[in-house]
């Protein structure tokens, strides 16, 4: 049984003018010990999907199963034990850390809320974790603004780990960081995964980072998964024209001054194109693409694509 199994998940938002279909029928699974990369451009719904899995957004349809238990409709109280098992690391750790609490209080708070340990036990766990994420113990008495971006992300990771979760949703955890710091944080996430036996859903717009950090990759476009594959087979042969376009858009010195840019902008998720959502920008689109929405189907072992004309 998968640690996390999601089927036909929808998160729609009612707006004054119509409905925003941020997540529009997504199915995915995360196995124990696995890192699943979720890649897509802004507005594709990847962050909303991550937040919905943690029930920070309310799904409008579909199932979210943890070890086979559906948590999509549980009330807050019933959710609590699952909250412990599912945590999140955000892009901007500063925005997610209370500026008026010390790091020690921030890290101990989840233990208090979940009634774990006495004060001494909590202190011990906080100290051992701050060591583990590479910050000095003196950090515990200080406030979030006293830390650099990279250090704050270490704090964000420590807070996500304090309850010893099984799955962490990482939402663009290194996007706001400089390259030299990005490597430090990726290495830390990787070490934590090994130490605590974690699984990650790793959300990013950066293909290179996903290529390094994911075992399996999901490509999302306008609320849907358009391709799903093992990392190796995805880069060996991207089947969806959108995946190919994303890869081709990554700056590459081997293509000096010859970019093959995809034309057009992302359509609004409030006003989705007919048929395949990608067809207005797709170089391979034909009449059928404007009429029928393609569904994900397996084209090679473990490699699924939602396209009427996949690469083969």
């Amino acid at each position, binding site marked *: 049984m998968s640690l996390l199994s999601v089927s036909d998940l929808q998160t729609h938002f009612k707006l004054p003018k119509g409905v925003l279909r941020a997540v529009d029928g997504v199915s995915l699974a995360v196995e124990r010990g696995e890192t699943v990369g979720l890649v897509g451009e802004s507005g594709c719904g990847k962050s909303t999907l991550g937040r919905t899995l943690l029930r920070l957004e309310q799904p409008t349809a579909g199932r979210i199963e943890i070890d086979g238990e559906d948590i999509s409709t549980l009330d807050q109280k019933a959710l609590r034990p699952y909250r412990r098992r599912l945590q999140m690391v955000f892009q901007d750790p500063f925005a997610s850390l209370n500026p008026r609490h010390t790091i020690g209080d921030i890290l101990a708070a989840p233990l208090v809320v979940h009634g774990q340990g006495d004060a001494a036990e909590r202190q011990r766990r906080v100290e051992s974790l701050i060591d583990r994420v590479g910050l000095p113990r003196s950090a515990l008495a200080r406030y979030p603004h006293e830390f650099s971006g990279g250090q704050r992300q270490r704090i964000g990771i420590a807070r996500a780990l304090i309850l010893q979760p099984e799955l962490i949703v990482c939402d663009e955890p290194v996007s706001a960081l400089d390259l030299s710091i990005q490597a430090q944080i990726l290495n830390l996430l990787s070490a934590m995964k090994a130490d605590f036996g974690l699984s990650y859903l790793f959300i990013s717009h950066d293909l*290179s980072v996903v*290529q390094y950090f994911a075992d399996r990759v999901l490509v999302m476009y306008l609320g849907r998964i358009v391709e799903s594959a093992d990392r190796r087979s995805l880069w060996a042969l991207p089947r969806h024209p959108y995946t190919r376009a994303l890869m081709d858009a990554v*700056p590459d010195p081997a293509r000096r001054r010859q970019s093959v*840019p995809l034309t057009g902008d992302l359509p609004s998720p409030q006003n989705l194109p007919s048929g395949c959502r990608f067809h207005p920008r797709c170089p391979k689109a034909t009449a059928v693409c404007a009429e029928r929405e393609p569904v994900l189907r397996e084209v090679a072992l473990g490699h699924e694509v939602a396209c009427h004309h996949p690469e083969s």
Partner: protein
Amino acid sequence: MSNTPLLEVRDLTVRFPKLEPVRGLSFSVEAGETVAIVGESGSGKSLTALALMRLLPRTARIPGGQALFGGRDLLQLSDREMRRLRGREIAMIFQEPMTSLNPVRTVGWQIAEVLRQHEGLSAKAARARAIELLDVVRIPDPQRRVDDFPHHLSGGMRQRVMIAIAIACRPRLLIADEPTTALDVTIQAQVLDLLDRLRRELSMGVVLITHDLGIVAQWADRVVVMYAGREVEQALPGPLFAQPLHPYTQGLLAASPRLRPDHHYRDGPLTEIRGNIASAVGQAGCAFAPRCTLARASCRASVPPLLSAGADRLVACPVTVPEPGFVANVRAPGAAAGLASSHALHQDAHVAAVRL
């Protein structure tokens, strides 16, 4: 054509009451050339752009240096002279177009304003030219878009409008400060492609300020690497990426997952640059020394000078480039796997096989 570069910056320093975020920076830009200034936050790259545009905050001073542009020193011009130059001969685009565009004016009005100010066009002629410019920057349906307000447009479209404003008077120099950082990767490629086409068509010199090594490798003719306010390495992109010589450049390339696309977290960690840029504060010697695995005691004593390391190459590291013209074959641990020998590199100016 004369031998004088379009822009020659010599020993530029920017000083605030308590710090000097740019120290002794020198580089030049030829007409039709893209020079990338690459660095992380705190490197001083954006303040360099603002200094050249004379748009620094009031508390900043420029105690030394020159920026020669067409025989005149930009740093010495009166505000009035600078205003005439700005927008007409030198233009700038910023990372976030929404904050530079006026939200209560149509994009057509904003493009036309530049043309009325600098070229004295009539309102009607300026509007017609604005529509042409929207077409030049490949905004679809320019006749209609000219009356749109900035909030009607996507991020990529807004950056195109900013570019249209910047090139309206056919400037000779364009300073682009992180022009695509806020954009999605597919849109980013479109905008960089557009900038490059305009560079070619207008023979514009471009100063491209970025933190993204991939962009540098694909689009720059020359690269200036900055760390904590100083230039640490200057090179052509081919040699720079094939064999970085400054330990900071080596560290950046080694830390970049893009450099080694086959490397996976299950195979082992990325090579880190330890510590962070805050350690540069108060260093008497090389600002990178506290993070450098190759640093010696002498590195902390005095600032290493930029020395020549072959044609078109300057490096400020006494460890990897100990004396003029001598290129040591030193690598940071784990840096740039599969480097060729230093001899082969200088012949192979545009090694294209390295992916970033």
